[in-house]
Every structure is written in C-alpha cells, then in structure tokens.
C-alpha cells in the first residue's frame, strides 16, 4: 500500500515535470514495463488534462474600482486618525463634564432635601456625627462663680498700729485617725526643735493629747515649719488665733501647714488677725462641696464643677507695718484628737 502511494506520488511528480532527470527516466521505464502503472499514469494524465481544461473565472466587473475605493476609504480613515483621537478626547471630556454636573446637581438636591426634612435642632448634631466632630460637653449648670474681672480694690485703710504688743496665742487642733503616731511625731518635732523643755503642760487622755508651750516667735515658726510633716497624718486641722479680746478666737478651719505658718509669720497683730480672717473665709468658701450637688449628673466634666477658689489679690494694698517681733512671746496649744 505504501509502495503504491509512493508510486502515485512519483507518477504525479512525473506528470507535473517536477522530477530530476534520473528519477524521470526511472519512472518512464517503470511506465513502459508495468501495465498497471501505465493504466494509472493514463488515468492521472487524463485527470490532469481535465482539470487544466476547467474554465477560469474572471473577476467580476468593477472589481478593481471597488478595491481602490476601499483602499481610498482606508487612506482617508488613516488620515483622519488624529481627528478621531481629538474626537475621542472631546467625547471623554464631555462625559466627565456631564458626570461633574450630575454630581453638583445631586449635591444641591441633597442640600434641599436636608433643608426640608431635617429639623433645625438636629442639624448640628447630624453634621457633627457625619464629620465626626467632637462635641463640646454641654454645660448643664451655671457656674457658681462667674468669671468676672476682679474689681479694682481700693486700698483699705488700716488703722494705725497700736503701740502695745499683743502676744501670739494660737490653738492648733489636729484631727487624725492615728493619734499615737501623730503624738509621737509631735514629740519628736518638739525634741528636735528643743522646745520640749518649754512645754508647760502635756495632757494625755483617751483619744486626745494636748500640748501647751510658751516660746519665742522664732522658735514657734521653727516648730510650725517642722510640724508640716505631721499634716499628712491628719484628716483635718483647725487653727484658732487669739485676739486682743480675751477668750475670743478667730477660727480657721481646714487649715494647712503653710497657712498656719503664714498667719504666725505676720509681722504684727493687725496683720495676723486680718490674714487669719481672710484665710478663714477662703477655706470656708472652698470647703463648700459644690460637686455634691451635681454628682448625680452623668457625663459632666468634674473639673468644671469646681468653683474658682478666691485668692488674695495683689491689688489689695495693705500698709506694711514693720516691727521687730522676734522676741515676742507666743503661746501655742496643740491638740491631737482621734477622729
């Protein structure tokens, strides 16, 4: 079968004149000597002649013109490529403009809808929630002390000092949860300052200790300075400053060590009394626990509840009265009481 295919291929090539001279001669000899191959050759020759005689069709009329017209159209289109690109750019620009216009219209429509449907009261809230703005804490109370500029205080005329010296008499009452420890500390301070010997009386009762001592003003200041270490052990402290009227005291509640020191450092009686009065008033004012009134309210900035503490202003002019009181005798009573 393979041989027959090969022979057919050779015969076809022979008929088509595609063989070289040697193969051509071999095929010719084969055709002459083999009747079957001869018949096949005749058949192939006839077929080839028939196919060669098949009529050739000509291109339809106007074929060339049609092709050139198409080519011209292609050339025209190619030449207008830049215009096409420009057109495309223009189209894209128009579309973008349209989209932008639509967005603007939508935004305007949104504003109108917002204006119509959202109540005015809720607008700020809504806007804040949209833009995640932190809302300022709402003030639910009026400030107990209005923030007003302190008025110019005219100089208070202070009466001229009396020539007679009124001794410093102070009673310091310390309320504590640990009276023993406080007592021990006071004892140690008295020992360290060398005033233990000047203690005229020490009364120890259940839940209370009382020290009474007479000393110089400097020693007293020294002692009070040292006593500042006792304050952390105390829950409350009260200072009573003696006046010129016997048995009458100016009571300063919730006094601090520094305040005690300041009062006792006063140059003279008048200043001392005035300072004691002022500090007493300040402490009384700050002792009002305003926060208790609002503690039930939630979400309130606690700092805002605190009233402004009154302070002694520098404008309050006082006449500086100088006197040498370093040798002034003082009387100090310290009471330690269990709370």
């Amino acid at each position, binding site marked *: 079968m393979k041989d027959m*295919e090969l022979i*057919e*291929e050779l015969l*076809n*090539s022979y008929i*088509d004149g*595609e063989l070289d001279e040697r193969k051509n001669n071999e095929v010719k000899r084969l055709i002459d000597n083999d009747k079957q191959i001869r018949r096949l050759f*005749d*058949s*192939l020759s*006839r*077929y*080839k*002649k*028939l*196919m*060669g*005689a*098949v*009529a*050739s*069709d*000509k*291109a*339809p009329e106007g*074929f*060339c013109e*049609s*092709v*050139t017209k*198409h*080519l*011209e159209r*292609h*050339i*025209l289109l190619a*030449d207008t490529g830049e215009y096409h690109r420009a057109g495309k750019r223009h189209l894209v620009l128009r579309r973008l403009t349209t989209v932008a216009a639509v967005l603007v219209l939508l935004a305007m429509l949104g504003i109108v809808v917002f204006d119509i449907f959202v109540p005015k009261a809720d607008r700020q809230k809504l806007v804040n929630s949209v833009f995640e703005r932190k809302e300022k804490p709402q003030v639910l109370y009026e400030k107990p002390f209005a923030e007003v500029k302190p008025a110019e205080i005219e100089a208070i005329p202070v009466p001229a000092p009396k020539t007679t010296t009124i001794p410093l008499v102070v009673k310091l009452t310390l309320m504590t949860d640990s009276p023993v420890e406080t007592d021990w500390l006071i004892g140690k301070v008295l020992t360290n300052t060398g005033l233990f010997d000047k203690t005229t009386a020490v009364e120890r009762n259940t839940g209370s200790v009382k020290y009474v001592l007479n000393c110089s003003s400097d020693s007293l200041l020294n002692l009070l300075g040292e006593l500042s270490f006792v304050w952390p052990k105390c829950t409350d402290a009260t200072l009573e400053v003696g006046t010129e009227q016997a048995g009458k005291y100016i009571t300063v509640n919730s006094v601090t060590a520094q305040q005690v020191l300041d009062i006792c450092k006063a140059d003279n009686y008048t200043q001392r009394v005035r300072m004691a009065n002022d500090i007493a008033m300040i402490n009384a004012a700050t002792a009002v626990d305003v926060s208790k009134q609002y503690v039930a309210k939630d979400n309130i900035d606690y700092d805002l509840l605190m009233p402004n503490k009154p302070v002694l202003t520098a404008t309050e002019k006082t006449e500086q009265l100088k006197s040498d009181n370093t040798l002034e005798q003082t009387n100090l009573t310290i009471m330690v009481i269990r709370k």
Partner: protein
Amino acid sequence: MVKFIQERLKAASGNISIDEASLVAQARAGNMDSVERLILKYQDRIYNTILKLCGNEADAAELAQDAFIRAIQGLKDFKGQSSFYTWLFRIAVNLTLNFCKKNSRVSFQSLQNELDEDAGRQLKDYLVDKKTTDPSELAAKKEVNGLILKALEKLDPQQRAVVVLRDIEQMSYTEIANTLEMEIGTVKSRIARGRKNLREILEAAVQ
C-alpha cells in the same frame, strides 16, 4: 481628500513601470496607479483561485477584495523575500482557508445525479475508457465544470488548496510550498492524495 488622491493618481500616471518590483515599490510609496495596475494584473487569478477554493462567487469576490486590501495595506511589511505574486496568493489562500474553516459545510449529497446522461457518459468514457475525448470540450460543458467544482468542494481544504494551485493555477511545487508555507514533500503527498480523492469522487459520480 478624494480630490487629493485623484490628483495623486493623475500625477503618478506618467511614471509607471511594468516591472512588478517597481510597481510594488511605487505602490508602497503611495502611487495609487501602481496599486491599480497590480490589482488588474492579479485580480482574475486571485478571484479564480479563491472561487475554486470556496465555491461561491459572492464570497470569492469579497475574499479577493479583502486579500488585495490587506496586501496593499501590508506592503510596508513586504520584505521582498518572495515574489509579490506568491505573497499575494499566500494572503488570499490563507484568508480563504480560514473562511472555509469558519463556514465549513459538510456535504454528504451524492454527485451521481448532477450530470445528464450524455455528459455523464462522456465524462465516464474520458476518465475510465481510453476513448479520447477532448478534455477542453468536456470541461467547457457547464454541467461537467459544475461537477468538478462540487467534487473539489468535497476535498479536505488543505488538499483542495494544493490541487487548485497546481492544476488550475499551474503553480510549481516550489511556488505552492512557498505560498502555503510548507515542505515540498508535503506538497507532493497532498497533491497525490488530493488527485486520488478527486478522481474517486468524479468516478463515483459517473458510475
């Protein structure tokens, strides 16, 4: 723009060479007259080959036109390694074979009743017997011509292509190999098988 092209055509009309290479060169340079001459030179052969391959006149005209347009537009890519004629035929045959692949219609219809008694007998005598009938006379008969074309349609497209290029277009084996971009051995075997199949189809039709 059309006016400009017409002016270009007129300007180039006095500068034409009949040599294919110079025609191609001028066509590549944009000379529309050379383009027209190239089309006129090959239009019948291209159309005829395509018609024999696809078997439909309208399709053949469209494919031929498409082939010329592609060839002229692709002239800038034509490197001259083969002749323009081979290159043009390659484009045309490839286009047609792709078209046939996409629009393949397998016909199982017998060709036995395609010929009248007289034409059938004459064709049978010619193919089987040794009676010498003039093949050109026979092929000139419209029915016989139609039968041959239908028989060609029944061939495998690749075999059909080599048979048409060889027996109708009278291309050499080398030209066929260049056109279809295949080995000469393949061309030989395909021609042998194609002719054998065609002969069998025709003989069956005249039995």
